[in-house]
């Protein structure tokens, strides 16, 4: 836990100083939002129905960028080897990077979600508590899987292409779960979303545990 906390603090410190990761995911998130809104060109009364798909499509692509950048930090000066020669369990590296990715994506969600409501003419305040649960579960599931695959892709050539190619097919169940849960929450609150939330919770647990167990095999020789 000491190692995971040190890595989380280090990543947050670098992000706070450079703001490179956050600024790039926020700009990309805003651009995607504008592009999707313009592309759908829905009338104001039909626009709210687009919220789940626009929200999670935006999250998915901006998240890919954010998570990839988190591991590029470890590539410069071969810092990943610096972590691997230290006496911490590789699972602690995974936990530290996962926590940093979750935090970065949560900040991104804080900015993007209100904008989605604004662009698509939907007042999110009445459903905010339920929506926060879906956002948190979606964030954790995405980060759990993406952190593991970012560690794989950062060591290979054509890493920018590799991460989406490896990750997107595996994220389909998460995407279905988050879109479905968001739609249910917007329609009537958390109770309607219980099935989808169950799927999301299972996804989160499976991939967080898998990442924790497999990370050593991914990063070690």
């Amino acid at each position, binding site marked *: 836990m*000491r*190692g995971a906390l*040190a890595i989380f603090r*280090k990543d947050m*410190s*670098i992000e706070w*100083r*450079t703001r490179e990761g956050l600024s790039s995911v926020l700009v990309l998130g805003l651009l995607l939002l504008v592009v999707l809104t313009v592309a759908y060109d829905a009338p104001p009364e039909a626009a709210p129905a687009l919220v789940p798909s626009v929200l999670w499509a935006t999250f998915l692509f901006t998240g890919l960028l954010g998570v990839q950048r988190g591991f590029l*930090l470890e590539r*410069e*000066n*071969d*810092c990943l*080897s*610096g*972590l*691997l*020669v*230290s*006496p*911490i*369990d590789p699972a602690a590296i995974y936990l530290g990077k996962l926590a940093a990715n979750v935090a970065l994506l949560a900040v991104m969600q804080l900015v993007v979600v209100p904008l989605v409501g604004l662009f698509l003419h939907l007042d999110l305040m009445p459903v905010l508590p339920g929506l926060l649960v879906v956002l948190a579960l979606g964030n954790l599931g995405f980060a759990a899987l993406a952190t593991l695959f970012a560690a794989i892709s950062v060591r290979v050539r054509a890493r920018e292409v590799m991460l989406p190619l490896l990750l997107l097919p595996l994220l389909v169940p998460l995407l279905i779960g988050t879109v479905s849960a968001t739609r249910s929450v917007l329609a009537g609150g958390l109770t309607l979303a219980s099935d989808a939330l169950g799927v999301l919770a299972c996804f989160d647990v499976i991939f967080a545990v898998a990442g924790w167990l497999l990370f050593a095999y991914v990063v*070690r*020789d």
Partner: protein
Amino acid sequence: MPALVAEGLVRAYAGMRVLAGVDLTVEAGETLALLGPNGAGKTTLLRVFALLLRPSEGRLTLFGIDARSAPPELRRRLGYLAHESFCYPDLSGAENLAFHARLFDVAAARERIGTLLAWAGLEAAGRRPVRFYSRGMSQRLALARALLHEPDLLLLDEPFSGLDPAAVEALQERLVALREAGRAIVLTTHDLDRAAPIATRTAILHRGRIASVLDGRAADAVAAAYRTVVAGGR
């Protein structure tokens, strides 16, 4: 108990043997200089010793422990200087050392970091981001990082690279003091003149094998052996 015992270490990449059966023993209180031409396998061998690479064949024992198990406590006893600094460019030198001190659970870290920054001549630059360091400053910081947790076995890949004469002298003094304190040191170098004053033994690595091991202080004999092994006597 020897600090390091390598028996028949082989490391292959895509079928090509970079290490072709290395046998070597390093005792505590000894400095072994590893010489060899480019591509001899020095860096690969040091990465195997640092537990970053697994040998394809053979056995590595560190402080009597089979390195295949590589428990965290074993890593704590190793200090590794690589070609890269392992330091984050957007953190300052002091912050990088503080981060590694947390990973290694270094006691009285603040004092230790201050001492090492002073030794490395980075007191003034310690608060600047590493991105703005020169090559020599990065190397001195990387050395401070490798020494931070007072390892029992120091693995130094080209430690004199990028250092000015004063820094070379400071490093030589430090390494002699560490050896006299009972630490084991393995360093790779192309520069026999810089390794000779501190090495107790010199091994010549050629085509992935230890071709010769000599008394490190007999610089002329080492130079002659190096020419014989590497250049076929020319």
